[in-house]
């Protein structure tokens, strides 16, 4: 019996062989054996609920033995329809929703969104507001890169740096607590400025943090970068060439790791970046290790930027004075007639931008985060499109993972650093 089934399985056509195996399995014939299991390709389903995919990313991996032949990412498990929701909310109401896009740096998303609205309604914000927003963006960058650093080394097996990174991140969240009143989903910016002035306690907190942070970062780097396992698992793994990266429209640390010095903070300076002195980290190799080094270098540069911002922070108003566009302070709404009227008009009818479109992009920690807003003159956007860097960057996973080993999958995802809240919108 055994011999006859085995003879049948020797057919060269894989389809016939497969159907014979299925036949044998259906008749519960357990005597069937395979001559070479590794010759058969296998499809592995990874995710959406998997601790190493950084959210609800699903990958279908086609394997030959342990080598990856093909990868198909599957998105949409966190699709909440935020673009549709924007069409039913006013410009102010949408700010808390931007927290939930890239939930590792909510405060930088607030800045990006309000900048797009201000570009549409042609509202200039005062200098102090710009400085506060720059501080927010850079704190967000450190906050996000710490998670990227921690989870990437955790995927390789080093748990200690992850906990250290979380400890540092916790300090940033404490600063947000003083600054915005919330630790996580900040919703700090408003159209025309920020919700409230930055308190002295928060400035002291940031000063203390940026004084200590380089030392702690050095500690974290010391136990990672001289570790042979880390280097072997990342060097030359997950390579993308410069040409491919440009062709796929990749932005952020992944593009800079291939040798393209594109950073919107230098190329299209927004806020006060043209007045600051900082460098762009660029490396040539395009592998996981260079992406890691880019993020480390960006954290160091962010500390430099924060030092300059705090030194130069000017006095003055933090909000644009235009009462038709900027929400008044709550205590004034309850006591002053003028403010009550403006508050009523802004809440009920919105900022009513002119008919037209605007596109505004910032350099978020993952790449170009852009908001395209089309307005028909009413208080809510006619169309709002989020150009999210995670969505574009995930597209190169098949290129990065081609011919790698199955154990490299989690490391490569860690080095790409996707956030599914942003990719799925």
């Amino acid at each position, binding site marked *: 019996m055994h011999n006859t089934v085995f003879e049948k399985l020797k057919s060269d056509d894989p389809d016939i062989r497969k159907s014979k195996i299925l036949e044998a399995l259906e008749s519960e014939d357990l005597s069937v054996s395979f001559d070479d299991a590794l010759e058969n390709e296998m499809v592995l389903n990874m995710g959406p609920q998997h601790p190493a995919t950084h959210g609800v990313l699903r990958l279908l991996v086609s394997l030959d033995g342990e080598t990856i032949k093909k990868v198909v990412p599957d998105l949409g498990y966190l699709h909440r329809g935020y673009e549709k929701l924007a069409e039913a909310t006013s410009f102010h109401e949408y700010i808390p929703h931007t927290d939930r896009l890239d939930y590792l740096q909510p405060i930088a998303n607030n800045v990006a969104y309000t900048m797009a609205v201000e570009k549409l309604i042609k509202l200039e914000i005062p200098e102090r507001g710009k400085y506060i927003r720059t501080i927010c963006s850079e704190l967000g960058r450190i906050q996000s890169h710490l998670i990227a650093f921690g989870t990437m080394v955790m995927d390789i097996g080093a748990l200690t740096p992850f906990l250290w990174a979380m400890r540092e991140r916790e300090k940033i969240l404490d600063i947000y607590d003083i600054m915005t009143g919330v630790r996580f989903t900040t919703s700090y910016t408003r159209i025309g400025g920020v919700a409230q002035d930055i308190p002295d306690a928060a400035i002291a907190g940031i000063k203390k943090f940026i004084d200590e942070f380089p030392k702690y970062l050095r500690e974290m780097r010391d136990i990672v970068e001289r570790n042979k396992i880390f280097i072997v698992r990342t060097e030359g793994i997950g390579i993308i060439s410069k040409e491919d990266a*440009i062709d796929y*429209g990749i932005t952020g640390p992944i593009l800079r790791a291939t040798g393209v010095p594109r950073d919107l903070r230098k190329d299209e300076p927004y806020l006060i970046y043209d007045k600051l002195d900082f460098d762009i980290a660029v490396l040539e190799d395009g592998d996981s290790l260079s992406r890691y080094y880019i993020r480390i270098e960006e954290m160091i540069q962010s500390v430099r930027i924060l030092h300059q911002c705090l030194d130069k922070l000017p006095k003055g108003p933090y909000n644009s004075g235009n009462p038709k566009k900027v929400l008044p302070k709550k205590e004034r709404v309850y006591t002053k007639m003028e403010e009550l009227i403006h508050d009523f008009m802004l809440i009920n009818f919105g900022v009513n931008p002119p008919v037209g479109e*605007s596109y505004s992009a910032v350099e978020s920690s993952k790449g170009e985060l852009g908001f395209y807003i089309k307005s028909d003159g009413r208080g809510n956007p006619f169309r709002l499109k989020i150009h999210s860097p995670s969505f574009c960057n995930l597209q190169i996973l098949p290129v990065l993972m081609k011919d790698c080993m199955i154990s490299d999958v989690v490391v490569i995802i860690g080095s790409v650093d996707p956030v599914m809240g942003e990719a799925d919108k």
Partner: protein
Amino acid sequence: MNQERIDLIKLKLTDFNIVFTDITGTPAINANPKYIINICKILKTDPDISFEMLLDEMGVDNFKKGIRFEVVCSLYSLKFKDRIFIKVLLDDKNPEMPSLTILWKGADWYEREAYDMFGIKFTGHPDLRRIYMPEDYEHFPMRKDFPLLGIPDSIQLPNK
């Protein structure tokens, strides 16, 4: 972008009957879907223009008769560090445009998203599947005639 560069682009694209507009300071081109491949090829490959990167393709539903849909392509030049938008105007009956995947590999997912959300067909796309919604979903959620609360019973749920 300075005026010289805009004039140069105008000169190179004279054959294609384009209209120059503006999106808050960034130049934009209104283009016919017939010529979009030719226009993009010139914009991408001409060394004096050189828009190497396609950053996004954004669908827009204007909700009116005639030219109802738009696809706004966002292009970036690494050489000159500026950007341009191309608005492809599409018909309401049969929203269809040639796929840009033959010029940029990255157009793949952007076009799948525009198809998923607006039902815009991209001819020549290698793999035009839905990207966010379930594969057997019949509606296009970002169209203006799709209600915000969704259509009841459009997704089969277990009945227990």
